[in-house]
């Protein structure tokens, strides 16, 4: 009887460990390849003009350290500084949102990093608001130097 009790106790411990691992909201769950595939889909970036004509419900998340964007859109925007993105209150706001999550920051580097983190946490409807259009397009055309320079041959 004692041995059966010990075995059942071991099962209970293992079951708790497994279940807590599966349902822990603070662990990355998605495959990394999913982030790359989603990032290659151009639909994850929108411009300000596209946002104005957006019909689907969305929540604008201002990732700046001090709020800049939220003042313009008080109704469907929230200020969550990037460093507080994983706080419980921030996560509750994001999880309770029914529409898309639109990330915006003055610095594109911040919204890009936040996008990957949220994507890997399991959020599927996250998009980045591009303040300046086509930032990933090369703005300059390289002109090759095609002048042939002859080298003198010394005899």
């Amino acid at each position, binding site marked *: 009887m004692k041995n059966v009790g010990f*075995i059942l106790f071991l099962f209970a411990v293992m079951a708790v460990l497994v279940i807590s691992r599966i349902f822990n909201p603070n662990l990355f769950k998605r495959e990394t390849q999913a982030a*790359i595939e989603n990032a290659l889909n151009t639909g994850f970036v929108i411009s300000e003009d596209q946002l104005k004509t957006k019909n689907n419900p969305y929540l604008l998340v201002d990732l700046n350290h001090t709020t800049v964007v939220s003042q313009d859109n008080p109704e469907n925007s929230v200020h969550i500084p*990037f460093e507080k993105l994983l706080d419980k209150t921030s996560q509750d706001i994001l999880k309770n949102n029914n529409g898309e999550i639109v990330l915006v920051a003055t610095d594109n580097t911040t919204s890009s990093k936040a996008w990957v983190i949220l994507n890997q946490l399991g959020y599927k409807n996250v998009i980045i608001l591009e303040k300046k259009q086509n930032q990933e397009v090369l703005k300059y055309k390289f002109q090759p*130097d095609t002048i042939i320079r002859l080298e003198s041959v010394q005899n």
Partner: protein
Amino acid sequence: MEPRIKISVLLIGLGVLLAFIPYNSSETFRLKPDELLEKSLSDTIYFSADQVARFVNSEDTTVQLIDLRSKKEYLECNIPGSVNIPFEEFLNPDWQGYLNSKEIKTILYANGDQTANMAWTIAAGLGYENVYVMRGGLNDWFETVMLTRFEGDKITPHENIIFENRLKARRLFTQINSLPDSAKAQFIEAKRLKEAQLDGGCE
């Protein structure tokens, strides 16, 4: 209870538990979210175009530049010494050696900041060390290095050092990228083979 029955119960129970653990054969992040967030907040992951120009000029062997753009864009022009790993192939095991090195600084760049920062976050999440980003990407490289001009009557020694550094990098960039495509492809392949031989050690 007989020992055999106890062991059987234990094994069956283990099997049931294992069956409920989600098996994920693909890679997932090794870092926890708060660890990755903390790393993401650091500004030390960035190098400026001037710093990268210095590495290029000095042919610093402790630095490896990774161009995340498509092969077509890479062949049009790229920073000398860089290796092309298109973003869609970032998780290809063949590139692991370039991306995850303890001895060599890996600096990622694309046209802007977005792709490079996403790639950095993925690399950091996977536990890769020594991965950095060239801030501003190739757009900033062009603005800072390729279009550098000095205007004025006098130049301070410090400004002169910066200007000379940019000029040298610009010359190198133009020379390498002005090669015909066939020669450029051969040059890149020769470089890749040379590095592969170096990795193999001395004969």
